[in-house]
């Protein structure tokens, strides 16, 4: 067993070599989502057209993960920064990467208005049902009964309301003629890749895309590998994994 291996890991061109060892916690879903995104960028050859914006949230740890031009923004503000870029420089494939808190709570006015206006960008939302970066508080998507730091006795929906469903909301407000809206899961990497590809293709063609990815946060969930995947399964049952609006469907209309 030689120590130095003769092969290199399968890192996409759009992914930085130095941060192959990313700053995310062990087992964190952000890694899976981003490596898949990087592969898709390679495949679509968008490396020079893409601009990647990351939110504050654990997503900020990706500030030097992608080997494409990247800007780290403020909590909730990745959407306006990125549509600011694409408005000023059309042809840019803008990607705004954020958590469920950044997207559905503090940044929801931008999410909603960018969707309605059909800004030319991909909003990519990693839903791990909590606020990872700040130590695991309730987020809009926290599951009923889920224990978090601000729901220490489990989320009581009679007080907090039911979990927010991002993709369903965007599907209801986005312009079906130019939008791609889907929910995917890191539990199905092949599916995720397909979705990201469709989403980025739509953006490259001038459209608006929203993709919510069901993700995991073993650190704050305090789960081991098995429990993590079990919870992800539960999420997949609760949050419907599907394409809500696709360019294909558009053509059918």
């Amino acid at each position: 067993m030689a120590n130095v291996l003769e092969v290199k890991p399968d890192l996409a061109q759009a992914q930085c070599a130095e941060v192959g060892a990313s700053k995310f916690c062990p087992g964190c879903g952000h890694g899976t989502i981003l490596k898949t995104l990087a592969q898709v960028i390679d495949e679509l050859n968008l490396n020079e057209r893409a601009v990647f914006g990351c939110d504050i949230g654990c997503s900020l740890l990706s500030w030097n993960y992608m080997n494409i031009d990247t800007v780290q923004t403020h909590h909730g503000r990745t959407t306006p920064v990125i549509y600011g870029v694409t408005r000023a420089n059309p042809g840019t494939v803008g990607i705004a990467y954020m958590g469920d808190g950044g997207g559905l709570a503090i940044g929801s006015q931008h999410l909603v208005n960018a969707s309605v206006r059909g800004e030319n960008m991909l909003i990519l939302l990693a839903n791990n049902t909590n606020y990872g970066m700040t130590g695991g508080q309730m987020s809009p998507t926290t599951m009923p009964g889920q224990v978090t730091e601000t729901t220490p006795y489990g989320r009581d929906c009679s007080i907090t309301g039911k979990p927010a469903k991002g993709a369903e909301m965007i599907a209801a407000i986005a312009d079906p003629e130019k939008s791609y809206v889907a929910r995917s899961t890191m539990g199905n990497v092949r599916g995720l890749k397909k979705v990201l590809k469709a989403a980025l293709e739509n953006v490259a063609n001038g459209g608006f895309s929203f993709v919510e990815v069901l993700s995991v946060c073993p650190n704050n969930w305090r789960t081991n590998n098995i429990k993590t995947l079990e919870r992800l399964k539960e999420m997949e049952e609760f949050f419907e994994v599907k394409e809500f609006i696709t360019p294909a469907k558009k053509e059918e209309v």
Partner: protein
Amino acid sequence: MTMTKEDIKYTGIKVENVAKGKADWYLFNKLCKSCYLCVAKCPVKCLHPIEEPNKDNSELGLFETPVVKPDLEKCIGCGTCQMTCPDCAIKVQRK
């Protein structure tokens, strides 16, 4: 200038000729964070954390915790572990 992927030397584990010789299995130990998601996802349950990792620095991961290794006999080289790994620590190379 970015250090290119070619410049970096990766250390780790190589398991040759898994899947009846159809593939080689690699683990880049300085990328592995011992999350063991690959272990849970392996369809034939052949992947395991190394119980007593040796100290030559190829069996301890980024956080100096044991990395994983497949059972040469059982591994079918399907690549699920590679796809699963959030940190690109595994490569299954078909021959």
